[in-house]
Each structure stands twice: as structure tokens, then as C-alpha cells.
């Protein structure tokens, strides 16, 4: 059965995946075709319960993935039809997914063999470890039954992001330091290498696809990126020239008031003392009556 073989319904399980720090309340979705047959497809994204497509990707060739589109959280269905088919025709594959705010999804057609396949829905990580890069591998070449995917960033076997990857498989994320690395995909009958520079705080997907001559190719996707070295704390972007300023200190004014009060009391006291001590001397003596 082709239909629904790899169809995944993301719901509660998606909550466990890492979400973005984004301030927006949206999610994101990328759509792509990683199935060699049919080599070109039309991909539709429908809001749940709607027959009117919200997004249409026509003629998507094998090995191509769209950039992330911002979508509202909620239920969606993805339907894939052979390129040029009527929009009302029965799709080759379909899948449902639930988009959560702050999450980014990748929905692609993917085959496990020449006769079996479906739509794989992945909840992308948006939280690479600080200063590191996350890399995963999708094995999308049914001609290579077991692929080893190696990164030049580490000596020896730990440099293998995945070994013996079967067609249609998706590796877990490997944490890799930033650098100008070379990735190599090695299958039973083909091998290919590609330069893949990794920056800090990025998330990548490396896709192994087959080519027309029986060889393999590496398609490198940048799924998400942040600032490699986030500054600490906020920014000092203002000097206060337009800000309201609070009242100054009370002390200078209280000192002036105190000095004024002291002068007044001193002067008043001096006057009162003079007033009390002078009456007897100043009152003229009653004139003596003369007979």
C-alpha cells in the first residue's frame, strides 16, 4: 500500500519537540518531494476540513524542498498529486498534521522502496545547542540500501552521523561544532561528497538522493539559524534626552529653608530680648506736680 505507509499524524508527540523562541504565534511548514517516482509532483496544503488549498507548489522535482512558510497554528492536510493532475483528483499520498505555534515542520514525499512510500512529517528542531549546529540525514535514494553519512568534523567513527541508513529513514540530530566541513554519503554502489559549511546556532538537514546515472547526491538544507554568539542582556540604546526626569534631591532646598528659618528666629529672638529689657529705661518719668 502506497497510501499512508509513512503518513504521520503529529499531535501530542509534537509538543515534546523543541519549539522556537519566536515571539510570533505562528508555526512554519516546508513542503518537498524526496520521491524519485513520480519525478515531479504538485503539492497542496489545505487547512483541516477545507477543499480550498492554502498553498500550492506545482511541478516540484525530486530533491526539492520549499522554504519555510509561516502558517497559523491548527490542523492541516498535505496532498501530493502527479504533476499536472487535476486539483480535484485523488492524490497519490496524503497526510495530516497539527501545527503548533513556534514549531517548524517538514512534510515531504519519501519512499522506503521502489513500490512503497508516503508523506513523512518531521517536527524540526529550532533550538540548537549554544555555539553548535544540529545536523540530521534523510536517506531518499531507494537504489542505496544502506548509506553511511560522514562528517569530516570528527576523526574516526564518531564522524558518522548515521550508518546503514535504509531508504526512507531519517536520522536523529547530531550535534556538530561549526566549521567548513565536508559531508560524504557512501552507499553500496555509489559515493558522493559535498562541502557543507556549518555556522553556530544553525539546524541542517542533509538529504541523500539518487541521480539519473545511478550515483548519489547530497542536498543540504538550512532549516533554521540564530545568532552564533548572542549578546548578554539588553542594549544601551538611549541616553535620556527625551525621557521624563524625576525630581531632584530635597536636601538643598531643605537646607535653604532651614537657613531662612534660623535667620528669622535669630532676628526675632534678638528683637524680643531688646523689647523685654528696654521698657523701664525708655518710659519717661511722670513729671512731678508743683504746688
Amino acid at each position, binding site marked *: 500500500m502506497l497510501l499512508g505507509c509513512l503518513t504521520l499524524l503529529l499531535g501530542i508527540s509534537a509538543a515534546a519537540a523543541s519549539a522556537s*523562541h*519566536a515571539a510570533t504565534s505562528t508555526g512554519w511548514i516546508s513542503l518537498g518531494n524526496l520521491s524519485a517516482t513520480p519525478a515531479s509532483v504538485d503539492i497542496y496544503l489545505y487547512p483541516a476540513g477545507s477543499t480550498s488549498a492554502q*498553498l500550492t507548489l506545482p511541478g516540484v522535482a525530486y530533491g526539492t524542498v520549499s522554504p519555510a512558510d509561516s502558517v497559523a497554528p491548527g490542523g492541516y492536510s498535505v496532498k501530493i498529486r502527479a504533476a499536472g493532475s487535476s486539483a480535484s483528483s485523488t492524490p497519490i499520498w496524503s497526510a495530516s498534521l497539527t501545527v503548533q505555534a513556534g514549531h517548524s515542520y517538514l512534510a515531504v514525499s519519501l519512499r522506503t522502496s521502489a513500490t512503497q512510500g508516503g508523506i513523512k512529517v518531521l517536527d524540526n528542531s529550532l533550538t540548537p545547542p549554544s555555539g553548535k549546529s544540529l545536523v540530521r540525514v534523510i536517506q531518499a535514494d531507494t537504489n542505496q540500501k544502506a548509506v553511511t553519512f560522514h562528517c569530516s568534523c570528527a576523526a574516526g567513527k564518531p564522524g558518522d552521523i548515521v550508518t546503514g541508513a535504509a531508504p526512507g529513514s531519517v536520522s536523529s540530530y547530531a550535534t556538530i561544532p561549526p566549521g567548513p566541513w565536508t559531508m560524504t554519503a557512501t552507499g553500496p554502489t555509489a559515493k558522493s561528497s559535498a562541502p557543507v559549511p556549518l555556522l553556530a546556532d544553525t539546524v541542517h538537514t542533509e538529504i541523500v538522493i539518487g541521480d539519473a546515472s545511478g550515483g548519489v547526491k547530497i542536498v543540504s538544507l538550512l532549516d533554521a539559524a540564530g545568532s552564533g554568539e548572542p549578546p548578554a*542582556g539588553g*542594549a544601551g540604546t538611549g541616553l535620556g534626552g527625551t525621557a521624563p*526626569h524625576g525630581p531632584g534631591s530635597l536636601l538643598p532646598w531643605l537646607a535653604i529653608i532651614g537657613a531662612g528659618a534660623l535667620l528669622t528666629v535669630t532676628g526675632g529672638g534678638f528683637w524680643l530680648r531688646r523689647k523685654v529689657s528696654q521698657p523701664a529705661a525708655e518710659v519717661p518719668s511722670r513729671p512731678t506736680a508743683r504746688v
Partner: protein
Amino acid sequence: MLIPRPAAISIAAGLLTLTAGTAGLLLTRQSTPAMRPPPAGVATVPAPAGPVVALSAGPVVAPPAGPSGSARPVTAAGPVPVARPVSLTIPVIGVKTALTRLGLAEGGTLQVPSSATVAGWYTGSPRPGSIGSAVIAGHIDSKTGPGVFFRLPELRVGDRIYVSRADGTTVGFRVTALGTYQKDYFPTGTVYGATPDPELRLITCGGTFDDATGHYLSNTVVYAAETA
């Protein structure tokens, strides 16, 4: 009854001083108001001339003729390098500024532009238009008047922002959210964290100005996403 001259002088001087001190105390209890509305001479500016390009360059598939819904090209290529940003235009609030390059200051904090009249792009963040959050900072004011981002808090969801790049291309963004945060609780992950699409963060100061330290206590952040 006469008041002796020394006492009269003392009392008069005391009362005057008392009155002046009381008046000064009462008058300075009023705070200096914020400078509002925006200064004269700052008006809206037009969006930059020339094409506004989307990031998703690479193999482009022709749009369909039939199916409903929006259609867009897809690419098999990896991320496409974009040129460094050189200027910023925000028509609705009259901002048109060159962009300096910002790194990290001592202590690992964000370096800020040396002039309040220009904004700067943090070179540790992605370039505007490439995947991730490009970060641009500018002053809300100098010591004497408004800075380049004085009117940033007036932006609303849906307003457009344009960044011109060294190769002559311009990338457009749409405001998706605004936030004001105390600097002690600055949301580093939200502002600088990874995103799957090309986004923009504009940072300036906001909130209360602390006269004692000479700094604002908060930051205002404008979030924007690339327009198709």
C-alpha cells in the same frame, strides 16, 4: 516701637530665604515631561526605489495556471548568500538611516552605534533576508534629543520595513509583534534564537529612564518577518 536694625535685617533675610527655599522645593517636585510628540522635521519617507527581492533565489518553477491557493517556487539549492546590509528604511515613522556594523562590547553586551542618528546591524546575527533573525539596534535618544529609533514604539503589526544591501537589492519585512522588556529580563532566546525563515529584530530603549545610572530600564523590540 522700633525693631532694632540688626534684628530687622536678620528677620527680613530669613523670611526671604525661607520663602525662596519653599518655592524652590515646591517647584522642583514636578517631573520633567517626556518629549512628545515627535520632533518637527521627522516625517514619513517613501519606501526605497527598486525591486524588493525575496530570498528564495535558485531554481524557480513557473507558477501554476490552475490550482487554487497561493503558489510559490521551491528550490533544491541550499541557502543563498545575501549581501551585507547598508541602510534601513521605515516609511511609516520616517526612518531612513545608514547601517553601521556592531559587534560585542566589553562584558559580552551588544555594542551600540556611537551616534544616536544612525542604526547598526549586529554582525553576529544573520544578514537581513537570510534565514534567521537579523538584529538591528538604534538609539531612542541622545542626551539632548531624539535618536534614530525615537518613533520605533509607534510601529504597529503590518507596518513595512526595508533593508537595502550592498549589492543594490532591497529586502522587505512586515512587523509581526512588538515587545517591551525590562533589561534585567531581556528575552535573549526570543530575540537572538533560531528561526526557520528570514526575520528581523529592531532594538531600542524604552520604559523608565534612571537618572541615577543614566540608562533606560527597558528595551523595546520590534519583530518582523520577510514579506513574500
